């Protein structure tokens, strides 16, 4: 009955609709992009009307917003946070420095390409992206979720060895619990 393919499809459509209308963003300002998050959440731009709201802990969050450059020290924490999040989960790369390093292309302490370490569903470019572009990024994510195309987490699970190898390359001292998500 419920495992029938067609009914599963209907359930998926309804679920994707709910997921798209309710996006809980983890409150983790990893970089300078965090400064445009308060304006996005407050009165002029008001992301809550689109169902976007903050979540305090990774257990409750749906979206991990990487707000800008990631130092190697933060990357370790971000990976840990990402693996604590529950499926379905999405990653938004925010700002030029997550895409190609931006102005920090020769810094010894920041990573340059985020999608080698974490599966990124949506990139928002700019330094710093304006709240409008942040909202547009959320809109794009909603569109992808609605179509069932935001499957970064599945990609991550399938190619875990590849991601792990990249991560361990810059985090030599790997002491992290294994999550059985």
């Amino acid at each position, binding site marked *: 009955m419920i495992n029938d393919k067609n009914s599963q499809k209907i359930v998926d459509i309804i679920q994707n609709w*709910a997921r798209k*209308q*309710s996006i*809980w963003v983890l409150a983790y300002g990893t970089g300078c992009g965090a400064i445009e998050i308060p304006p996005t959440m407050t009165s002029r731009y008001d992301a*809550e*009307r689109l*169902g976007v709201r903050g979540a*305090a*802990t990774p257990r*409750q969050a749906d979206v991990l917003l990487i707000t800008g450059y990631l130092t190697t020290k933060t990357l370790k924490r971000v990976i840990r946070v990402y693996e604590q999040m529950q499926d379905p989960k999405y990653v938004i790369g925010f700002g030029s420095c997550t895409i190609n390093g931006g102005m920090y292309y020769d810094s010894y302490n920041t990573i340059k390409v985020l999608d080698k370490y974490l599966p990124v569903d949506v990139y928002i470019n700019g330094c710093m992206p304006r709240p409008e572009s942040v909202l547009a990024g959320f809109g794009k994510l909603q569109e992808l979720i609605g179509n069932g195309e935001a499957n970064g987490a599945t990609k991550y699970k399938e190619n875990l060895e590849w991601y792990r190898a990249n991560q361990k390359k810059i985090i030599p001292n790997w002491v992290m619990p294994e999550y059985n998500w």
Partner: protein
Amino acid sequence: MELLTHILGAIATVILAFVVGMSYGGIVRKITARVHNRIGPPWYQNFIDAFKLYGKTTAIHHGWMQIMGPAFLMVSSVVTLMFIPVLTNGGWFPNLNFEGDLIFLLYLMVFGPLGMALGAGQTGNPNSAIGVTRGLSQMVGFEIPWVMALVALMIQFDTTSITGLMEAQAQSGTWNMFSSPFAFIAAVLAMLGMFRYSPFDIVGAPTELASGPVSENGGKYLFTMMSSGSIFAFVKLTLYVDIFMGGADNLVILLLKTFSIYMIPVLYGIVSPRYRTEQAIRFFWGWPLFFGVLALIYASIF
């Protein structure tokens, strides 16, 4: 036949409580947003959130006590709901409302938070443990004026039954909120703590404890907590309406009365920062306690 009515009525009550509680939550979010100069989410946003949470995979395992925590909450909310007369004449929601009394209800209402405390303690997250401790200490704070208000009513009307209180109001024609005003004030002040809006939201303060007891619970756990919280909110509101505002004859009046009383903690909360635990307890053992004592004196004199 009577059994079937009871069962169907119970199911209807739970659904009603869930829907009303959730919608109230959504409306509160909307009202808060309007005060913030925002548009705010639609009133049904909470339903979407709950549905999404239910659809999330939940692979957090911290032993069986963690699962028991939300389950305890849910069970206690539903059981408490069963003992609350939703409408004055029983109507579609007969439940068990003629058997229970206020003292039994007092015990039931702390059962859920205690279960939650066990569950949150099991998660191993220090934030949860601290949040639970704060929650229980705060409960000690507001339970005292709350119990005093109820005892005052019991003395005044010489009954411990909720239906008895409702009948007494119906006979005298005045609501208890006017016939025993001090008890009402004490109970309303206690209600501020019971609903855990600001200034008494230290239990799950995100900026200090990363949301306290719920910090390790996502997905279906959070869904259970959210829905039991909504049901419990409905329970508390209905109880207030029953014992202080003469109950409600039909659903529209019930909704009007509960919503107006719900606005007290909500509107107060929007413009208040939060108290620390010891400040909150000091608050409850100040004026609310004073009004509680006054209510007892008033009840025993008249």
